[in-house]
């Protein structure tokens, strides 16, 4: 039994289904990556896991508990955290307040978690009084991840965290994500930069038209000639 098991999900927005019998799992402390062509339903799959759209078949289990019926907010309380692709910070409040808001549901002392986030992303400590909207794209992504980490999640979900950032920043961000996973947090990530993402992935999912096309370790997928040919550009 994996830490996260989202099985046989079928569903979408409104009438037409986007996901068809899609299964995603993630292990404790490991990185799972969803890749695939545009419109394959990658983000939709992640949203389904987080409860942001209705699925009419299948189930989502977190740590053995069935959470299929829970709202996104309730899933946050269960230990899930989600970083949307865009609009993922509070732009006119300070970096520190962004982090505080991430921990809104927590009643205990959050200063330790905040220290950990600052250790992970030292630049944020320097800019903690600055408004998040004034930061660069890469720094904003760090704030977004940091905000999500403030809930002390057991599963961190990232929707294309490297969209629109430079290659150097991307590598840096991936390093941080590996670091987060090492600390025992499961990571589920949707990525456009398939090759780099599979490089760091313990497990990879290739989705095509809402269905699981290939599922294997990141390494194996990178080595798979068919995957290379169709999705990694040779």
């Amino acid at each position, binding site marked *: 039994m994996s830490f996260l098991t989202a099985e046989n999900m079928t569903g979408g927005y409104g009438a037409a289904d986007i996901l068809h019998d899609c299964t995603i799992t993630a292990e404790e402390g490991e990185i799972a990556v969803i890749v695939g062509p545009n419109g394959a339903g990658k983000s939709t799959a992640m949203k389904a896991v987080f409860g942001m759209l209705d699925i009419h078949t299948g189930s989502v289990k977190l740590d053995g508990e069935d959470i299929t019926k829970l709202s*996104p*907010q309730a899933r*946050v*309380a269960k230990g899930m955290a*989600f970083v*949307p692709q865009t*609009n*993922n*910070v*509070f*732009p*006119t*409040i300070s970096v520190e*307040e*962004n982090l*505080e*808001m*991430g921990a*809104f*549901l927590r009643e205990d002392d959050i200063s330790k978690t905040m220290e950990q986030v600052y250790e992970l992303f030292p630049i944020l400590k320097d800019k903690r009084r600055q408004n998040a909207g004034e930061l660069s794209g890469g720094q904003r992504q760090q704030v977004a991840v940091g*905000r999500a980490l403030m*809930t002390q999640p057991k599963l961190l979900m990232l929707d294309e965290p490297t969209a629109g950032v430079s290659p150097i920043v991307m590598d840096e961000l991936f390093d941080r994500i590996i670091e987060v996973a090492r600390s025992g947090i499961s990571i589920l990530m949707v990525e456009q930069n398939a090759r780099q993402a599979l490089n760091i992935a313990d497990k990879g999912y290739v989705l095509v038209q809402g269905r699981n096309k290939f599922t294997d370790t990141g390494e194996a997928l990178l080595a798979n000639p068919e995957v290379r040919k169709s999705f990694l550009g040779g």
Partner: protein
Amino acid sequence: MEGMEILNALAVFSNYVLVPALTYGSQLALGALGVTLIYGVLRFSNFAHGDTMAFGTMVVILFTWLFQSWGISFGPLPTALLALPFGILVCIALVLLSDKFVYRFYRRKKAAPVIFMIASMGVMFVMNGLVRFIISPKDIQFRDGERFIIKAREFKQMFGLDEGVAIKVTQGITVVIAIVVVIALFWFLNRTRTGKSMRAFSDNEDLALLSGINPDKVVMITWMIAAALATIAGTLYGLDKSFKAFTYFMLLLPIFASAIVGGLGSPLGAIAGGYLIAFTEIMLTYAYKKVAEYMVPGDEWEADSLMQLLSTDYKFAVSFMILLLVLLFRPTGIFKGKSV
């Protein structure tokens, strides 16, 4: 003697422009803060805000009359200040009811802002009707206690000038209360968890939901603060001038203008906008004859006109003009509020 002339000019200017504009600006700022907070969190321009002010003030007046009939007074200060907390509470209750029965439905449906705006017009009608029904549409004076902090005559004696500056109690109260309220509000918004969650919600609603911020609570607190601000602003305005349901409805324009000029959704902007509108309004409609006569050297010179840029009849046209200028050149307002 040259120095005296300038001081006299300054005294005239303070008496007729500076002090009244500071007072009026504080009243507008408090009103605009309410509008801007509602805009930030609920994302619509609340047309019922003027009538919320009227309703809150009406309750304050009713309690003032009750206290007066019991023989309770506040010494040199207006009794209305004692009644203010009660007015705030009743106004909060009414506003929360309006949210429960009107706005919440559209929030659940995720209706467009323009629908909220029309709904707020409905609420405006009901509140306006309530006020007229309960206290009548007449002009009402409810000020009591001392009238002046410093009289013009005393001022003249004190400084040995020909011109005096009179400061009314209501003007002093307005400025002091406005400062206290603004400090309290900013402390709440910037230092408390709930206040920060309000700002976060106003910034990015979806992310606030993901962070576990309870939208119903944020909305409720926003309404409560807006109702309190409206009651305070309305009471101060009524004490300073007078209470009339229709006048309060008409205050919508300068209040909206203040909020937009400052940048909708920005509390700091609302305050700046309030003073900007008040100062321009009063400065453009003030007759500078006397000030000019003091300023021009020599005793003989007399201005042949009032030296007034705009007739006082067009006071609120000023707020409209500023509004248009801001929309033309900087649609997000001075302090960069939310756009589109």
